């Protein structure tokens, strides 16, 4: 069922048009801007549902393809397509962006909403692109609004944070771009599906060697450099330690609703990139450096959790917690290249996608709770600022508790399934890596329980005695996320049946020993 359809293009255009429309609204009409933005968000969700209905989940390959010549002189095509992974990512984007819009301050200006919608358009584009050039276009398109959202609407140190964010991701992007340019010069194509085929067939290394014959870079070294450049771009975005240093500051300074999108979907963009642009194209590179990469991933897991433990600011705690959770995904992705059975590989990758979705929802929900807390505390988010909130705001604490436990990986909630699958898969392929990452799970439990302890229990801080529980609006905002966490935790099949055929195909396609 390889039908051609322009619906994906429309999905991308929708928020972009919305962004332009919102940008043209007078700064005075803030309610209007918010309304239009939410309307666009819902409309996107609706389109997304249509896409889901038209998508044949049993077929693992790309569907709803939109392909047309774009820059013929470079052989670049406009090539959109969707597979199971992309479908999950689109859904996640629609969902999290809508939450972020809802969680945004009522007083936000049209420009703010416009940036959010631009970001959404960029994300849709990046999750559906099958050609590097416009994939990169959308990848960069995400960077710009994110930069301005931080720069213009963030906390006291926003300028420095925004700059740091920009510089890190830009360096990563350029490395990525250079890497892919190198790849293009060697192979003559920017098409991701073609590159994946070449990667699987082992043609990449010979073609790079051929392209560089007689220059100072011999083929092997150039291949490593190119792959490393590409990896760097994603490693910064996800992040993979030690390229994570921009993250806590950025997450901390960004407006909390923006942080939702940063951690909820932007970080997934990095992982998605690894799955789509790195793993299939450079399996040899991963295999050659497997131990190192797995070590870094395990380090990300463990140190992320350990750092979270040491933080006092809630936003920073969650920032490091995000690093920790995404570390599992990195672990899963890298481990796939090791020697193992297809089942283990598939399990690991399914886990990765599951974890991406789960973490996206959970993290978005958690940051939404931080938004609520912020509103009540007047911006204070220190761990020690609170205590005994359970009595004052039982609904708040209950719902946030669900999210926290989902994040912790409690069985029955979504987080568990993803981590379990990853560990299962990785253990079957590279046992030591799984073992090395295990302390991360423990530390996560520790810092989350500690947080619950400090905020919800203990003596009530007198300052907050008047704190109100969640309003109806706020409940509406987080309820879907909570429901999803439980649903996905109890019925993993919902998601897995979407992803599995694609994963099987990907694993087959990798053509690994």
């Amino acid at each position: 069922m390889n039908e051609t359809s322009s619906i994906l293009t429309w999905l991308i255009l929708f928020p972009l048009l919305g962004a332009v429309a919102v940008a043209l609204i007078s700064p005075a009409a803030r309610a209007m801007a918010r309304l239009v933005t939410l309307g666009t968000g819902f409309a996107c969700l609706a389109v997304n549902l249509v896409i889901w209905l038209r998508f044949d989940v049993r077929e693992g390959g790309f569907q709803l393809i939109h392909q047309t010549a774009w820059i013929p002189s470079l052989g670049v095509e406009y090539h959109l397509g969707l597979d199971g992974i992309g479908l999950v990512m689109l859904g996640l984007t629609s969902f999290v962006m809508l939450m972020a819009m809802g969680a945004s301050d009522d007083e936000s200006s049209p420009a703010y909403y416009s940036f959010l919608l631009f970001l959404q358009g960029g994300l849709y584009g990046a999750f559906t692109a099958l050609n590097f050039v416009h994939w990169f276009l959308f990848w960069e398109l995400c960077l710009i609004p994110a930069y301005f959202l931080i720069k213009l609407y963030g906390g006291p140190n926003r300028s420095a944070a925004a700059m740091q964010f920009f510089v890190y991701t830009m360096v990563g992007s350029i490395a990525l771009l250079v890497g892919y340019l190198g790849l293009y010069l060697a192979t003559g194509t920017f098409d991701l599906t073609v590159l994946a085929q070449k990667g699987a067939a082992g043609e990449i290394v010979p073609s790079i060697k051929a392209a560089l014959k007689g220059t100072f870079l011999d083929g092997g070294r150039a291949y490593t450099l190119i792959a490393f450049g590409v990896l760097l771009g994603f490693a910064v975005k996800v992040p993979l330690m030690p390229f994570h240093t921009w993250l806590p500051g950025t997450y901390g300074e960004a407006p909390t609703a923006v942080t939702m999108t940063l951690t909820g979907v932007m970080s997934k963009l990095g992982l998605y990139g690894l799955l789509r642009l790195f793993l299939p194209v450079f399996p040899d590179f991963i295999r050659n450096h497997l131990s190192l990469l797995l070590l870094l991933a395990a380090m990300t897991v463990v140190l992320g959790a350990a750092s979270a433990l040491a933080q006092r600011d809630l936003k920073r705690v969650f920032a490091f917690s995000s690093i920790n959770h995404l570390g599992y995904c990195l672990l899963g992705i890298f481990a796939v290249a090791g020697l193992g059975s297809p089942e283990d590989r598939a399990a690991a990758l399914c886990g990765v996608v599951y974890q991406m979705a789960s973490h996206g929802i959970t993290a978005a929900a958690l940051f939404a709770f931080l938004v609520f807390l912020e509103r009540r505390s007047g911006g204070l988010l220190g761990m020690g600022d609170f205590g005994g909130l359970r009595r004052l705001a039982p609904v708040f604490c209950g719902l946030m508790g669900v999210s926290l436990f989902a994040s912790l990986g409690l069985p029955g909630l979504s987080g568990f399934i993803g981590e379990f699958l990853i560990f299962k898969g990785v253990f079957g392929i590279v046992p030591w890596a799984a073992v090395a990452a295990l302390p991360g799970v423990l530390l996560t439990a520790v810092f989350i329980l500690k947080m619950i302890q400090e905020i919800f229990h203990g003596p009530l801080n007198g300052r907050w005695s008047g704190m109100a529980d969640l309003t109806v609006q706020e409940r509406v905002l987080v309820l879907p996320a909570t429901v999803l966490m439980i649903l996905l935790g109890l019925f993993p099949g919902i998601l897995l049946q979407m992803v599995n055929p694609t994963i099987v195909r990907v694993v087959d396609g990798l053509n690994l020993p």
Partner: protein
Amino acid sequence: MLAWTIILSFAGALGVLLVPKALVRWVALVVACAGLACGFFGAIEFGGGPVSMSIVDLPWIAPLGVRFALEADGIGVTLVLLTGIAAVVGVLFSWNIEKRLSEYFAFFLTLIGGVYGVFLSADLFLLFVFYEIAIVPKYFLIAIWGGTRKDYGAMKLVLYSFAGSALVLIGILAAFVAAGGSSFALIDLAQAEYSVEFQRWAFPLVFVGFAVLAGLWPFHTWAPTGHVAAPTPVSMLLAGVVMKLGAYGALKVALPLFPEGAIFWRDILAALAVTGIVYGGLVAMTQKDFKFVIGYSSVSHMGFVLLGVATLNETGLSGAVLQMFSHGILAGLLFGIVGRLVYDRTHTRNLDELKSLNLRVRMPFAAGAFTVAGMASMGMPGFSGFVAELHVLIGAWRSVPVHGIIAGIGVVIGVAYTMKAIQTVFFTDAGDTDPGVETSPTYAPFTVPERAGVWMLSLTSLLIGLYPRILLDWITPTFQTPLYEGLRKGAGW
């Protein structure tokens, strides 16, 4: 249709001298718009493909074999469109000129007419005539209506231009004589048999002569001073189209006539181009004057054009033309924002002073526009600059890989200085430190012509960035025309 672009502009130049002062602006605008429309419909009439469309071909100076021959090909059409857009926006940005209005637009439209003429000439003599016609008005436009050190800037610019055209003239004469002295038609000259030695010394003459106007390092120094001295709309035009004249000459005359020479000098030219890219970028980073930042950025971006030309392969050459278009649009936009939107209101171009003015809040339109322009200029995907530089870099990698890599570093420098400018001027939070901002006077609101100009340029860049085929389908086949046959053979593609 295309010939009307030239005729209308010159007629307009005469016309503005004759109509009452109240009508001058409108006449100029109508002429510029009509020129753009003629260019547009002419481009459609041309339709693309590896051919050139003859527009006019009349005998002119029989004893020298000079013909009044105009022809459209893909490159010419692209640049005619650019000129049309730049002319319209230039007139819009000239709306507030009061001093010696009629003369201003007379010079302005003469310049435009000359530029159109260059892009459409099929006869080398005619091309040179138009080329020179375009140079003289620049002097007056800068010297009369200019700002900072206008005498110096104007004279320097014109003398550099004429020094360049002197070199070109020598080369043209030599080629004419060597080809038998019976025709000045570009195609005849391109198909003549020149000895390799001749090509080796004639090529650098013609190439450098033209490239002076394109800001080739180390002959670029006229560009920043000239741009800074010129009144805003003229800087827009200078960077927007006049610098393109030089690059066009190098591409359309030097390469087809002397392919062997081009191949011989390729590495050195590429090295100069790359030096321009890196040097322009680094100097832009250190500038304190906002307009100088843009001025040097032009040098850097034109370096990509020249690098594209020096690659001598189809991808790089297409990229060069695309970059010409892209830079024409973006440099116009940047100069427009810096000179008109910002400087005319704040009366300072010093980055440190602008920093404290909290411009983001006080002129959000300018901030937004400059951000978009800056992003586009630094090669953000989705805008024209990215596609163009991508072509150039890929082309460069295929023929001069080391230069290509250094040019890639130039891109990073470009990101750095552009970000720095955006950050410093528009996004420094002066509001936090300077409580007096709230009470400071508000700036005059942006006028309709200004807004129209900014939108027109930004949307063009976006359009080309998103769908470069509009231009590339014209540009690329041009290199399959007989004019480039020698180059194709020589460079082996």
